């Protein structure tokens, strides 16, 4: 297991870039879709990609190299010191479910909007103005 730690440290920059980097990139890609895309469904896709990125960031922050999942299954009863941080995982559970709830609500609004306006382009929804 010492080996693991060594290799982990050697490639640490790469690993951090792979995990944090992809989470941050997901957030940016999603934000790009939200800001630049015109189709309502695309915008909601962007929102859900942002949520995915945030969730990944949560789990990544809680990870500890060479530690196991925070479950005291038989044989691991006294391995509390060798477990990853369970708090971000618990928070992410909440965040995923809440994310699904908001996505469903957003999509129902999209359906409503399309029924009324006959269009799914955000630039054509201009009945309300400043």
């Amino acid at each position: 297991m010492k080996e693991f730690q060594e290799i982990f440290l050697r490639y640490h920059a790469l690993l951090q870039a792979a995990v944090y980097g992809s989470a941050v990139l997901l957030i940016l890609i999603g934000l790009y879709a939200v800001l630049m895309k015109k189709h309502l469904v695309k915008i909601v896709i962007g929102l859900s990609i942002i949520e995915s990125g945030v969730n990944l960031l949560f789990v990544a922050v809680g990870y500890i190299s060479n530690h196991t999942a925070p479950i005291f299954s038989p044989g691991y009863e006294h391995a509390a010191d060798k477990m990853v941080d369970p708090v971000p995982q618990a928070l992410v559970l909440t965040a995923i479910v809440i994310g699904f709830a908001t996505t469903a609500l957003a999509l129902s609004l999209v359906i409503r909007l399309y029924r009324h306006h006959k269009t799914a382009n955000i630039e054509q929804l201009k009945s309300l103005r400043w």
Partner: protein
Amino acid sequence: MVISPIHYIFVPLATAFLIPLLQKLYKDAARVVPGLVLFYNLVISVILFRRVMQHGTVTEIIAGWRPPFGINLIMTPFSATLASLVSFMAFAVWLYGFRFKRVLKGGEVMYYEILQLMMIAGALGIILTGDLFNLFVFIEITGITAISLVAFYRDRHGAEAGFKYMLLGSLASSFLLLGILLIYTQTGTLNMAQIAQKMPAVDSGVKVIALIFILIALGIEAEMFPLNSWAPDAYSQAPSPTSATFASVLAVAALYALIRVGYTLFDARMISGFLIVMGFLTMLIAEMAAFSQTDLKRMLAYSSIGQMGLAMVAFGIGNETAIFGALFLMINHAVIKALLFMSGSYFIYNLQTKKMDALNGIHKRLPYVSFLFSLGVLAIIGFPPFSGFWSKLYILYGAANKNMLLLIIGILSITLIEMTYYLRVIGRIYFAKEKSEPASHKPSVNALVAMTALALVIIILGIYPDLISGYLHQAGRFLLDKQAYIQTVLSMR
């Protein structure tokens, strides 16, 4: 069972879960039961408010784990004041909306009442919680209910306003999560008191970024410029009792969250300049937009945003006088704006249009409602005998104490704009030539009772502000005393 802050949350929750069943047993359950719950909230507000003011902060541990390990509810004098305000306003709005005709169609009334009740429970949760992630959950509860209520009429404007709110609200929740996570990585905790304790040791760059994320998120909820484009649409498209709730409950809770995070988690000095500048911009732009509105509800909405901006400025000034003024302003704004939305919606209901041109000479058709509306208008622009006067005076006094002459001039000139457009409406109501149409919808008794009660509150607070000023001073002092907050929470057993 001893009365404790948790009653604010679990009673509405259990009721909301039960309403679909009760509806099957008794047809009007969905309308009556929330009222009982809100009345119960009002009763425990009175009890807890007295307890907090006499014996100091009331705290409650949830799930039996003392902070920082468990989630805790905390009622400082500051949050007790706001929680009581929210409970009172929620009950008044329920009373007003009890026979509200437009929401009475079919089975929708159940959806409406559940959402409305949970919006209030969520707002109370925001005010009471002492945990950062729990704050996020309650913000989501209010957000989802508010979106559904904005889109409640299912017309094209409603859905559009709802979608706008949805878009900004989702971004807000993502940013809030990022901010929370950043704080968690640095401090290893989610309890607000412990974060406040550990915050000075955190690297200042990370601290600023976390602060920016959280300010963006809470700024969206608290209608801060330039993130408030959802607000006028949401206010004007929602059913009228909901608009009143937005102004008197949701805005209060969102501003509370902003202030709690800014003052307790971070340093008050860190955000004071930001709050003053953003608050002033919010106020200026909102009042200018209100000036050019032709739609009554939109005008009221912009005026609401303006008032929130003024409250932000006052919290930014940050001395005791200004905070006293800000708290007074929050109470005034909640009561007065609710009254304006309530009476204004009777105009709209009678005229079947939101346009202000149609208001000409309506005082002959709805004399009492017109009287209440003008009372509200006079109070909100700060005419001397009414309560709005005192809050503005104290905020200006607070600014003067800090020698912010420019700010005083700015606030006064914005008040002038405000006065112009509000008095224009009054002019229309009383002095313009009326079109001869008979009044079709007289206000119902319960709505009249609710509106009269609010009007009485305005008048009494205006003539005799000492009634609450002692409490407000105490609340303001507690807000500034960060160490007391930390100690109270972390010494809980």
